[in-house]
């Protein structure tokens, strides 16, 4: 039980990286990158988790309850925002590349430049 979340992290990172390496389409490649990014959310939240603890929001729990770590949750929020902006920028680059080379296959693009 104590290692399963970390195995999920490794799995997400692994399949995402495999997708990035083997992808034949930029849009697909960017989606694979988001899968890799998802592993960091799972890792951050898994690190902050404490068995039996509640969410660190004191609206309806007593002030001295045992709660999970709020810092990693704030970091996850930052992570999500940065991922969204990186994806937007990469998609814009993919549009630009398609206009220029007429393809979204990274390998075909390399061949065209040779």
């Amino acid at each position, binding site marked *: *039980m*104590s*290692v*399963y*979340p*970390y195995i999920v992290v*490794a799995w997400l*990172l692994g399949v995402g*990286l495999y997708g*990035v*390496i*083997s992808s034949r389409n930029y849009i697909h490649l960017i989606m694979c990158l988001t899968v890799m990014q998802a592993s960091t959310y799972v890792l951050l939240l*898994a*690190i*902050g*988790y*404490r*068995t039996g603890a509640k*969410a*660190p*929001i*004191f*609206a309806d729990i007593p*002030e*001295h309850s045992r*709660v*999970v*770590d*709020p*810092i*990693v*949750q*704030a970091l996850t*929020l*930052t992570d*999500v*925002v*940065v991922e969204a*902006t*990186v994806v*937007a*920028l990469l*998609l*814009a*680059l993919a*549009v*630009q590349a398609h*206009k220029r080379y007429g393809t979204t296959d*990274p*390998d075909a693009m*390399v061949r065209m430049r040779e």
Partner: protein
Amino acid sequence: MTRPRMIIGCLAVLVLVGGFAWGATGLHPFGTGHSRYGNHLAHSTVPQRAATNSVVVTAFDYRAFDTVGEEFILFISVVGVVVLLRAIRGDADDRPEDELVPEQRRISEASRWLGAALVGPLTVLAAYVVVHGQLTPGGGFQGGVILMAGLAAIFLGGEYLLLLRLRRSATVPQLADAGGAAGFVMIGFGGLIGTGVFLQNFLPNGSQGSLLSGGMIPLANISVGIEVAGALLMVLSELLDQRLLGSQ
């Protein structure tokens, strides 16, 4: 797959597997995490700030400087998207509007009605999530995305013309984006003037559980919410332009 890509990929996998295995040896078992700093922050939000959501208090008060950096990452990448996509558009921008919108008639009545019906509730929900950030789960980033979803409902309803006009006038989302980013920094300067420390809380804490608790946190949430919605709207309308130009 080309050879250079394969070689670089294999190198990356080796480094990653090694680094991950090395890093995993230092991890505590799941569920036993205990960070003194985290614990301290979680239990000092209510006495120090009268705000109940310690995640938002961490992001917008104790570690507000990090959030300023995050906000400017968002701002700059939106500028990057706009620059990249406008470089392609060029002269096509000058064509009359009805030439640019050939698909509008193909949208079904049902999706037009659904789009129109969703705009109001989504906007209200967004405002609710933003202003309750310091009390319950939510905050500026989440609320901004929901506000953007309300505007995307206009798009789903097939009202391309409306969005296109918004993009052409361009001032509304740009002002929202820039104003939201500037607003957060202004709040930081408020701290500098009020307490002598940048981004230090300078407003009264209010009473726990009320909308005006948490000092500057509600203001920061509102400015971030406006910025996120403006930024996403700019990205959406630029990508929409690509779609409309592509269909010619």
